[in-house]
């Protein structure tokens, strides 16, 4: 049972921390250190991103571990990250665009950052051989709502060992989250969920998944205990996808953050967590909630409430849910919540706390 749990965990890790669940690694067992890399996005104009390291065993947090370990600053905005099976963490940076590769436990730089082939990178998924990175590219058009769209978004493919760029593949507009299931790479875009064949770096298009009942862009992807994919569509909620038939099998209406659209699933794949913040007429964050969706029934419940959440994560070690009262002009307050919704602990993190990489 325990072994099955770990195997499932490996698959879940694919979804929640963007580590690939592929045929090559499904038999791997990755021991957990009960540590969390907390990504503090930073203020875009200030390059004030930072990395915190949270110890689930004792509830302590170390801030600015990258600077302490390396004697230099990241000097960028950190959008997301991923932990590879070898415990190397990929820190996806914007402005300047780069991927810092560090040892998860020490935050020490492992190798020179990846810069080739990046243009506003968004998210990454990593296997034991490849790194796949979504990029917006720099070309944009202005949408009818006044917001920029990036129609030439692409996925860049890298060799994990050499960190060399292998190829770039156009995937549509506003490419965001991605997930590898078997040899299929699922990519969230404005057009829907694009499916690519990752076999032998082929990267040909296998399909585009979109429900007629759902408008807006797809943002992020997770996998559940039945090995079904779920994609967030902030305009509607979350959408269940059969990764084999590429068909939409369920739509659940649940509030999803419109800007980030990030979702996360728990260790067992039984629940998917979303978050959403409500702003009042004066653009002040008024209330924010974490929502839990039962993957089997599609029922929605409110787990935890606050003022302004931006990001959610679930620990595979403790099942605790991580979020933060976020601030982009000062430090955020990270909050750890039990699966039943009680506040377990809180800790001051960096500016713009948004992602949690468990290892």
């Amino acid at each position, binding site marked *: 049972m325990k072994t099955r749990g770990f195997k499932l965990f490996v698959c879940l890790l694919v979804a929640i921390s963007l580590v690939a669940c592929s045929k090559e690694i499904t038999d791997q067992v990755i021991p957990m250190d009960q540590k969390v890399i907390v990504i503090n996005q930073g203020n875009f104009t200030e390059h004030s991103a*930072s990395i915190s390291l949270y110890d689930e065993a004792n509830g302590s947090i170390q801030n*600015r571990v990258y600077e302490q370990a390396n004697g230099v600053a990241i000097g960028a905005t950190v959008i997301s990250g991923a932990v590879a099976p070898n415990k190397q963490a990929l820190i996806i940076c914007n402005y300047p665009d780069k991927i810092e590769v560090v040892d998860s436990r020490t935050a020490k730089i492992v190798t020179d950052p990846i810069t080739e082939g990046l243009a506003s990178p968004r998210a990454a998924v990593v296997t034991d051989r490849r790194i796949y990175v979504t990029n917006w590219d720099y070309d944009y058009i202005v949408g009818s709502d006044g*917001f920029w769209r990036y129609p030439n978004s692409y996925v860049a493919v890298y060799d994990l060992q050499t960190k060399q760029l292998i190829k770039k593949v156009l995937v549509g507009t506003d490419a965001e989250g991605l997930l590898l299931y078997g040899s299929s790479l699922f990519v969230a875009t404005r057009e829907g969920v694009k499916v690519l064949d990752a076999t032998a770096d082929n990267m040909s298009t296998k399909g585009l998944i979109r429900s007629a009942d759902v408008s807006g862009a797809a943002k992020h992807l997770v996998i559940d205990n039945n090995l079904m994919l779920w994609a967030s569509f902030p305009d509607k909620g979350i959408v269940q996808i059969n990764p084999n038939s590429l068909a939409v099998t369920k739509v659940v209406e649940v509030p999803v953050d419109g800007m980030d659209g990030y979702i996360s699933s728990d260790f067992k794949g039984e629940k998917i967590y979303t978050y959403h913040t409500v702003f009042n007429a004066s653009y002040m964050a008024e209330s924010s909630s974490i929502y839990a969706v039962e993957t089997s029934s599609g029922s929605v419940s409110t787990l935890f409430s606050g003022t302004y959440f931006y990001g959610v994560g679930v620990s595979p070690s403790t099942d605790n849910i991580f979020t933060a009262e976020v601030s982009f002009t000062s430090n955020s307050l990270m909050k750890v919540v039990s699966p039943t919704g009680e506040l377990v602990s809180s800790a001051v993190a960096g500016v713009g706390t948004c992602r949690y990489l468990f290892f």
Partner: protein
Amino acid sequence: MYRGISFIVFYFASIAILAGAPASAQSLFIFKDEKVPIIDSVKTYNLDSVIINSGIRRSIVPNSSFAVGSNIIRASQEILSQMKTNSLADFIKEQSAIYIKEYGRGAGSYLSVRGTSSSHTTVAWNGMSLSVPTLGQTNLSHVPIYFFDKLDIHIGGSSALYGDGSIGGSLQLKTAPTWEKGYSGDVLVSLGSYSTLYTGATLRYSNNTTESRTSLFYTSAKNNYSFLNNTKPGLPKEYLNNSGYLNGGVLQELYRKFKDSSLLVFNLWYLSFDREIQPSVSLNDRPETFASILDRNLRASLSYSGSSSLLSYSARASFANDYERYKEDVIEASKVLGSAEAQLTSTQFILKGGGSYEYIAPSAKSFAHSVQENRGYLFFLARYNPYFISNLVVSAGARAGWVTNSEVPFMPSLDIKFTPIRNQGHSLSLKASLSRNSKVPSLNDRYWGGTHTYLKSEKSFTAEAGVNYSWFGMNNHIGQSSSFTGYLTFYRSEVNNWIRWLPAGQVWRPQNIPEVLSQGAELGVNYKKEFVEWKLGASLNYSYTNVRMIRGLWSEDPSIDEQLAFQPKHSLRSSFTASKDAITGFINLSYTGERTTLDIYDILKPYFLVDVGVALKGVLGGNRYSLNIALKNITNEHYENIKFYAMPGRNWQVALRYFF
């Protein structure tokens, strides 16, 4: 003959400037009458130089005359002339302990007085605001010292005196006629590190009734200095890219005196700043992110002032246009202003009142086309020096106004100054000031990307008290003097509804921070002594600034009760000078203390800078000249004022100024 030659020199220099010919830059010029302290405090106690103007008349006193209980740093014409090739940012940075946020050499520089933001300090030229209405603040690197004759730095809240925005302080720049008959002027050429060039030229013509002043400047720099990149392992040495600038401007003034001693003045200035935006060190090798910004500022005003035996009056009409282009985005605003004021003077009272009206028309893609603004203000000031307590001065003031779609808080002030000791060269004054100040949200705050009428005006309540002491001594046997001036001020300023831009979903919107508290102390001392054939001087300015958010937008904000970002608690400036005959040497010391970024755990290390230099003066062809050589940051300190924005290491400047 010499004046004719000088005029020709001026003429060709002017043409060279207009043609974009190189010129130069630096500071520290020395003049014949140059004995005024580098920075005076509220009062100048020893009169070392006297400039006598013809046509003396009773005129309206500046509003700063009513600030008897607060601290005004008064930079004289002489000290300003020493730094003619510098921007206002350079001047304040070197000559006071006021903190300036700098994004690089010649890049954006913003004042922070007593921990407040740059939009909380008004900057005005002859009473005309230099801030850009859309942004509500002034980039001090865009204000050339070369144009100005006087500068008052009023530290502390002063909205009743200077109007909307004077929450932290006010900078009052002034130009004035010399009434020196005939042609006069100067030509200035300066060279410096990083291909820095500065040229300036001024021509004045005056007869008994009319004076014209024309000034031009042109400056450019590559600013390709080296720095240690603190975002790359090993801190590699790199050279800065995309940091050059090419600036120029013209100032034209006409003064006309009438028989009743009234005065008609026309001022016009036009400035152009074409500046590459210095990249952060992490973007220094990313040319795809490089950008430039172009600013053009026009100011024109026509004023008339006069007086009778008791009553003085003045009126002004002015026009301003500010244009800024960043990539494809253009932000422009035009402003028309009319103002009038009158003053009643008696032996014990000065009563002054006035009003102003402004019409502002902004133009920006992110503003609705219908956005326009009307502003009106009325103010009243009174200063009382009772005959029965001759060493007491009390002043009070109030300002009220209205602004389109905004509430304007009432702005009163009360100042008191008591001088219990004034004898045998010693003078000791006690002073105190209370003021309520405000700032209406800028046009960007209210209209950028929508209409943010929910925003409240920022307002502050400031209380301060301090002591001024001065001493002047003369050794009659050897005819040598010594002098000392000093001040110590304590203040407390509570700012409510401080405006900051915060993310609100997919966009950023301005919000009011409920309460920020600034408390601190300011100390300034200045000592001068004549010793044998030497004239020695030493000065020190120190400020302690404790500025914290007391109430935030959410109760759990970790930055509550922490020092605000980019605000050093300790800031110190000191200088030592030694003069003999035509030579003056100087050492300037500058310390900026530890401060944080937006992250309270991200601490920027303090830095200590040392500048040295020498200035020579002489006569060539019957006219005066000055030659100044300065070595800046001689310890080659690698530092950042704002995180990730490199500042220059050791560098030099040489300046030659020729007067005619």
